[in-house]
């Protein structure tokens, strides 16, 4: 196991990836972060909480292998071991897909707790991919979290919704309801950041976003063509060759496990004249 100095694998740390707003990159980030953790040798499982609109399986590239799901396990129709899909690229990584047919009410608090308790005995990190919104599914995804990664675009509605989610993390979670418990450790992950537009004054800066949300920064993922390309082929972006986005996620993962990595804001290399002439796959 290759861990950074001073970090030991925590047993069953639950991290929710949430945002409030849809389309900001929760599933992309869940896939990238879980693959990044697994790549570092941590036993990691990523759970899809978006009941009815399952998409983590496609992002992870295991959509053809889903037999049983999270809801089957909660309802006792399948054992957890049978529903977990082992990643074909990393043997430390597993995926727990959700159901496409049930409604979100099938996700009971007791059921979620039971599954998480069982997963904690076998995994170092449990990543919960939240659905958009602040309804039942999103609340279940965050309820038992030890940490939260709040995915935010530098855009007014996304930042506003993130603020809302931070409020819920501080009031509606198990940790919030438990006397003497540390609050959920929330960090913001800024995605689709465009340095060029920031420089032109068309986009809020990292500092602007942090000033408004007042939580620590986990990382800044630049707008990158690599993200769409990776989702096209069903590969988490950190496993799909080097890119600015992959680097940003790797850095964020290192910070998540307690390493200190300098905050660098990469951007897609602008194609030079030669590159434009001779083209290149991206």
């Amino acid at each position, binding site marked *: 196991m290759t861990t950074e100095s001073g970090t030991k694998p925590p047993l069953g740390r639950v991290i929710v990836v949430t945002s409030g707003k849809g389309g900001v990159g929760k599933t992309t980030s869940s896939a990238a972060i879980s693959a990044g953790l697994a790549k570092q040798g941590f036993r990691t499982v990523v759970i899809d909480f978006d009941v009815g609109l399952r998409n983590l399986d*496609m992002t992870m590239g295991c959509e053809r292998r889903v037999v049983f799901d999270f809801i089957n396990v909660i309802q006792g129709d399948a054992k957890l071991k049978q529903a977990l899909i082992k990643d074909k690229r990393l043997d430390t990584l597993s995926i727990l897909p959700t159901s496409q047919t049930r409604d979100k009410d099938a996700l009971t608090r007791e059921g979620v707790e039971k599954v998480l308790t069982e997963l904690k005995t076998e995994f170092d990190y449990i990543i919960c991919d939240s659905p958009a919104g602040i309804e039942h599914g999103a609340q279940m995804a965050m309820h038992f979290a030890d940490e939260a990664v709040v995915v935010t675009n530098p855009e007014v509605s996304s930042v506003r919704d993130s603020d809302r989610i931070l409020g819920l993390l501080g009031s509606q979670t198990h940790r919030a309801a438990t006397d003497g418990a540390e609050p959920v450790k929330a960090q913001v992950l800024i995605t689709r950041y465009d340095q060029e537009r920031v420089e032109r004054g068309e986009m809020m800066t990292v500092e602007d976003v942090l000033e408004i949300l007042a939580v620590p920064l986990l990382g800044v993922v630049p707008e990158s063509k690599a993200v769409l390309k990776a989702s096209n082929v069903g590969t988490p972006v950190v496993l799909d060759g080097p890119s600015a986005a992959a680097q940003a996620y790797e850095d964020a993962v290192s910070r998540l496990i307690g390493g200190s990595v300098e905050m660098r804001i990469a951007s897609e290399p602008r194609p030079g004249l030669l590159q434009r002439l001779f083209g290149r796959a991206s």
Partner: protein
Amino acid sequence: MSLFSFARRKRPTPSAQTAKDRLQILLAHERGTGGSPEADYLPMLQRDIVAAIRKHVPIGDEDVEVRMERGDQMSSLEINIELPGAPPSGAKGR
């Protein structure tokens, strides 16, 4: 070569084609099951298989492993049942 590909830039990139293929295969399966996007019969099938085998051999729920691979031409369902007391070399029945 790349100089010429500049001229026919419109053609889908390989990863876009992969995306389209993946979606077509997946959606063909999901639409095929008449409204309900997914076959929900698997848990029931597993229960029935376990019940049928239990008539003759005592096995637990954990001893059954179900695997699926959906393809565009063919899909396969693989069911492994671990039978108790069988010799170690042939412990798995299929």
